């Protein structure tokens, strides 16, 4: 054999030294990728898989139910306010309440939540006052900071851009040796962003305590999931990065709570991230600026009515004797009142202070910026605008 390919490592140390870490021969057995479990506990007919029922107290079950009703009520009120011109563009969540609320039910105050713009149901449960969320959607700067004692990220307007920071929070928990976890929510559309793939990889490599909830609602504005990806099983992404992954019926509140709870426990236990693909459906508009009749056959929406997450949960709670038609009525009305009260509070809140837009960018305002603020204040003065 000619000498040109006798590399130094081989000839200098001899052929015999073979450390165990590197196999000398290619392993040619096929690699089994396993399978992805699909979890449903409470089916479309209200039947329950008792082996998997999450252990929630009756009180907690009713709290969760109320949170879903509250989400739907808030949603409808926001649409009304938007039509009345009293609200900015808004992204409704109709039909996704189980998915959205369910993903935060297992969280503690010390855990963190990183919502998307369609996750207000979860934000309310996490402690965001509804009038605060109204401020947010109405374009006030003070609507975005999470309230005191709420460990949330502000939601991400740039699709997918919050997922890496959420993983960073998890890495921070590892760094500080805390046994908490992070739940981060994003859509089927967001799953196409490269930054989201990087987030999955970082979480897996660093065993960050992160629960990824990909809320696959079938659409990203006018783009159906079938055009978003050639493999509609988005959970396979998790597997590719070495993350335990599961598909869940996102319209089944029990399955959502169960899956997130399991994942959160694993995360807190040092076992790293979990990827949950929640199958649900965007029943309504993408946002109030959108007209889905342009691009989707509304026939497609119909069967999802049968899979309504709230109806199903009601059957379950009735079967458990936790709910009656009367108490449903009561809860519904109390939610309505709560939302109306929030709305009234929102309407009575101070108008925006145009003066503050320079105030929060830096810890200490640089001189050039304070000169610009003076210019701006002069503009406001000239226009006769009030500010602080």
């Amino acid at each position: 054999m000619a000498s040109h390919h006798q590399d130094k490592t081989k000839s200098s140390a001899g052929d015999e030294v073979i450390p165990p870490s590197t196999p000398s021969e290619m392993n040619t057995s096929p690699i089994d990728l396993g399978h992805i479990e699909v979890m449903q506990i409470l089916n479309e007919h209200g039947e329950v898989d008792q082996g998997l029922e999450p252990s929630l107290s009756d009180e907690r079950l009713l709290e969760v139910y109320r949170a879903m009703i509250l989400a739907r009520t808030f949603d409808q009120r926001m649409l009304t306010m938007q039509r009345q011109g009293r609200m900015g563009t808004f992204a409704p969540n109709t039909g996704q309440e189980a998915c959205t609320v369910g993903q935060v039910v297992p969280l503690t105050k010390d855990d963190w939540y990183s919502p998307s713009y369609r996750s207000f149901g979860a934000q309310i449960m996490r402690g965001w006052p509804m009038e605060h969320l109204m401020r947010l959607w109405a374009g006030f700067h003070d609507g975005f900071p999470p309230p005191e004692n709420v460990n949330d990220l502000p939601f991400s307007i740039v699709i997918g851009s919050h997922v890496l920071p959420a993983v960073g929070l998890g890495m921070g928990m590892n760094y500080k040796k805390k046994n908490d976890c992070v739940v981060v929510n994003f859509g089927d559309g967001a799953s196409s962003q490269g930054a989201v793939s990087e987030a999955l990889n970082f979480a897996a490599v660093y065993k960050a305590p992160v629960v990824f909830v990909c809320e696959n609602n079938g659409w990203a504005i006018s783009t159906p999931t079938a055009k978003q990806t050639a493999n509609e099983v988005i959970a396979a992404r998790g597997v590719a990065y070495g993350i335990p992954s599961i598909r869940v019926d996102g319209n089944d509140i029990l399955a959502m709570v169960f899956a997130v709870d399991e994942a959160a426990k694993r995360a807190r236990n040092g076992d790293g991230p979990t990827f949950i693909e929640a199958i649900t459906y965007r029943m309504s508009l993408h946002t109030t600026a959108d007209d889905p009749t342009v691009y989707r056959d509304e026939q497609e929406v119909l069967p999802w009515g049968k899979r309504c997450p709230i109806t199903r949960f009601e059957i379950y709670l009735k079967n458990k004797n936790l709910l009656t038609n009367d108490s449903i009525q009561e809860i519904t009305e109390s939610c309505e009142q709560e939302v109306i009260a929030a709305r009234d509070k929102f309407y009575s809140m101070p108008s925006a202070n145009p003066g503050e837009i320079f105030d929060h960018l830096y810890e200490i305002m640089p001189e050039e910026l304070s000169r610009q603020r003076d210019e701006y204040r002069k503009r406001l003065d000239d226009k006769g605008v009030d500010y602080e």
Partner: protein
Amino acid sequence: MSKLTMVEALNLAMDQEMARDENVCMLGEDIGINGGVFRTTKDLQKKHGEDRVMDTPLAECGIVGAAIGMAIYGIRPVIEIQFSGFTMQAFDQIEQNMARLRNRTQGKYTLPMVLRTPYGGGIRAVEHHSESREAYWAHTPGLKVVIPSSPRNARALLAASIREDDPIVFYEPKAVYRAFREEVPDEPELMEIGKADIVRAGNDLTLISYGAMMRPCKEAVEDLAEDHNINVELIDLLTISPMDTETLTRSVQKTGRCVIVHEGHRTCGIASEIIARLNESAFEYLEAPIKRITGFDIPFPYFQVEEHFLPESEEIVNAIKETRNWQ
């Protein structure tokens, strides 16, 4: 001739260029059956087919990167990024490949592609939907940056951009999208890229702007002519990069005074560059400091207070009077 909005005029340009050249194709999020979030590509997919007007997955870096490959392959992709704020997702492909592949291959591969994207404030949108970061692109060698201000020049500049062999960032002032109508000829019309437009001649002061800010500038200039007998020369840049320094220089050599207006941030913005160039080319003629009225160096504010962020004609009038009277 028909009276069109800017959205309609842009649509016309794309429709006609697609009809003219089968190598012109489109990629973007929701641009197909939905016609784009601003309806700029309305009906183009129906007319020219799904193969030519492609809905993409939600990945801006992917859109730009794929278009680069298509351009190398001899296609002329016109891509839409839904809001200019999301071009950040594609910054790497824009800076590393779109702007440089021609140079890297010494012209073996050219990149005839247009990146269209709505920019700027004024439509009460949420954060990241009002950015004006044309300075990023002007600072990036290898790109051209075009910003129209009216339906007619939007149509003519977009058509010309599609025919160009160099990569172009085409910023569309979304505040102007439906703000007014203008006569636009039915037959294809082109405008030369790289030339500023002297919208109104004048001797007292040069006012330079572009895009959506041309409207308050025009108002200001009219006010000043009527009420104050100040004769402003108003220049619409139209192409931000490469900049038409000659036209600006000639004007300021004549007037000796200059005000620049844009909504993009101030530090290292377009106005800084204009000032630096005029400092070189018209220093001896300058009778007053050049005044810049720009977006502040803070993120574009949320919509409850955004109206106060953008310069308005009154402030421009005052700045012009001040600069006019400076001694």
